């Protein structure tokens, strides 16, 4: 039988490869609908949610930074050796002998630190625009989990250079674990893989940093994005005063949203590159277990916690207070609110004012309390027979709690805020306290971790703001 030469022409092998991408004729016809973009974004979205001042693009920035980290981290994996004898040398090899090695490390370092900042700002944006109510409640929890993972990733990566900064920062932070009642010492040995920080610790941190945490992040991130889409996109601002609209105007995702994302992403990458070219990731001398540097500081995002340790008994500083803060964050969406204002920054005019008042109060009171406690209060010396948990823990905690309660009482009388506004004001109060404590730890603690001015800290530690990263 002769070949059917007169039959319609059949596509060649290469054509068939190319065509297989579009799968079916129907999909080819709607190729735009089938594209990957529409798994993440709806075809159209409320026009008002496009406004930059609503979201500042912080969630997307987090994703871009994550991608940068995955990319640069993969490159680092080709050079780095996770063993105490060679880890530090491999970092030097990377910086001195590998083409663009230092740049890749700097990109990883700056992306990692920026990610902590961006993730925190994103959390604040969602909170202050009321994007955590109703359908978004559970996504708030996923977001908190992601934030925890980002911190864990950053913290485990901190040890890997195995220099003096990383070694002693991890010593201090894992030292804090010991103060957890009952579980503490066991948990500490578990995290360190032994009594001391050694080869096992490095291997544990390396595996967490390069396998466990990335996998968890990659699993939780799409879940987080998907829930946003299921909630109908990001939280939308209400229509302007006096405008009654049946359906808010919508805009197409392509190109309106995608172009904006592209611009924001490219600008962010440019920023990271500029930082990476201009500022090197720090690297001190090789880790020396026999010599603690002075001062020895935790990674900057844990310096607020370390600062608490100077003012409260460890049980309060590393267990009770952090647990209370975490519990508060988790419960935020599940409190009973009389009104729910979503999509408006700071709820209302009263909300704006009360938040500002809370910020100013915390800004004024925290440094005062820090200096007062450092210079004057000596509860354990004044009350020698009393257990330290009471004299250094409960005793300073009571006035702190009373101050918060008093502030709340005064706020209620002065402004008559709604429940929503009150919760926001207290949130701002605690947030600013934490930020001030962190800043104190970073810039106002010098030799022996004594209080000092930033310009008195000495040149050696002048640039250790983001010390010891990847």
């Amino acid at each position, binding site marked *: 039988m002769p070949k059917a030469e007169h039959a319609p022409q059949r596509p060649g092998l290469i054509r068939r490869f190319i065509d297989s991408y579009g799968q079916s004729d129907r999909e080819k016809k709607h190729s735009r609908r089938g594209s990957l973009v529409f798994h993440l974004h709806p075809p159209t979205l409320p026009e008002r949610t496009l406004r930059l001042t609503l979201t500042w693009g912080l969630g997307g920035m987090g994703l871009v930074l994550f991608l940068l980290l995955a990319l640069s981290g993969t490159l680092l994996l080709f050079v780095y050796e996770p063993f105490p004898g060679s880890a530090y040398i491999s970092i030097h090899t990377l910086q001195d002998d590998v083409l663009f090695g230092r740049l890749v490390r700097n990109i990883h370092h700056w992306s990692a630190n920026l990610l902590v900042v961006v993730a925190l700002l994103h959390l604040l944006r969602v909170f202050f625009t009321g994007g955590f109510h109703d359908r978004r409640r559970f996504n708030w929890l996923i977001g908190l989990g992601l934030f925890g993972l980002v911190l864990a990733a950053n913290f485990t990566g901190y040890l890997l250079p195995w220099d003096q900064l990383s070694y002693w920062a991890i010593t*201090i932070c894992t030292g804090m674990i010991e103060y957890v009642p009952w579980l503490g010492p066991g948990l500490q*040995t578990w995290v360190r893989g032994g009594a001391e920080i050694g080869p096992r610790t490095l291997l544990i941190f390396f595996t967490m940093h390069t396998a466990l945490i990335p996998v968890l992040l990659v699993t939780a991130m799409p879940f987080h994005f998907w829930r946003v889409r299921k909630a109908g996109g990001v939280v939308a601002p209400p229509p302007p005063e006096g405008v009654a609209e049946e359906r808010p105007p919508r805009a197409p995702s392509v190109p309106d949203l995608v172009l904006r994302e592209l611009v924001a992403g490219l600008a962010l990458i440019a920023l990271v590159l500029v930082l990476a070219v201009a500022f090197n990731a720090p690297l001190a001398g090789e880790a020396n277990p026999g010599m603690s540097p002075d001062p020895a500081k935790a990674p900057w995002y844990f310096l607020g916690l370390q600062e608490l340790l100077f003012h409260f008994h460890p049980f309060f500083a590393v267990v009770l207070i952090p647990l209370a803060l975490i519990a508060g964050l988790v419960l935020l969406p599940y409190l009973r609110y009389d009104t729910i204002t979503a999509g408006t920054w700071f709820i209302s005019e009263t909300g704006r004012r009360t938040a500002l008042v809370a910020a100013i109060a915390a800004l004024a009171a925290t440094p005062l309390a820090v200096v007062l406690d450092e210079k004057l209060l000596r509860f354990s010396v004044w009350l020698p027979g009393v257990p330290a948990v009471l004299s250094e823990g409960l005793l300073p905690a009571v006035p702190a709690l009373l101050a918060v309660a008093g502030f709340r009482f005064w706020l209620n009388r002065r402004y008559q805020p709604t429940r929503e506004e009150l919760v926001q004001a207290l949130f701002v109060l605690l947030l600013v306290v934490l930020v001030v404590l962190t800043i104190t730890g970073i810039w106002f603690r010098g030799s022996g971790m004594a209080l000092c001015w930033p310009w008195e800290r000495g040149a050696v530690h002048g640039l250790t703001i983001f010390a010891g990263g990847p």
Partner: protein
Amino acid sequence: MADARKKMNRDAEPAAAAPSGRRGFLRTLWIGLGVVAAVEAVALAVAFLRPWKPKPGADAFGGVITAGPVDRFEPGSVTPFRRGQFYLVRLEDGGFLALSRKCTHLGCTVNWRADEQQFVCPCHASVFDATGGVLTAPAPRPLDTYEISIENRTIMVDTATPVRRDTSDNAQVTRV
């Protein structure tokens, strides 16, 4: 009565009714087995990750370290042992103490200041006296000690497990 109503409901909309009887029992069984499997998996993972004690080499940290003959250490002296990560203290009265170099606050390495006769932690400025007692907080308790044994007038220090103590007193001192 309730069962009968359930049955009728099931006929009406089969998916909505809660399973009962054999079906319910089997479902409970599956869930139970699932929980048991999950607990097993977690327990195995924890056991797998549980830290083990590295076998100390001869005369290395974690084992028994020979510090030297008694007479080599003058009364009122402090000798650091890098290998064993401790300070051997000989008090004025001739007694010995092996002090861990780890600060009890957050685990930094304390330095001996001979001129002030003090151990000082560079991390958070805790200060200890020559016997390891706390002079200045934030350290919550005295420096840990290691057990000392004296054989043939030679000092041996067992660095396997540091001894925690709440106060520093004379009973902890080993005499010749």
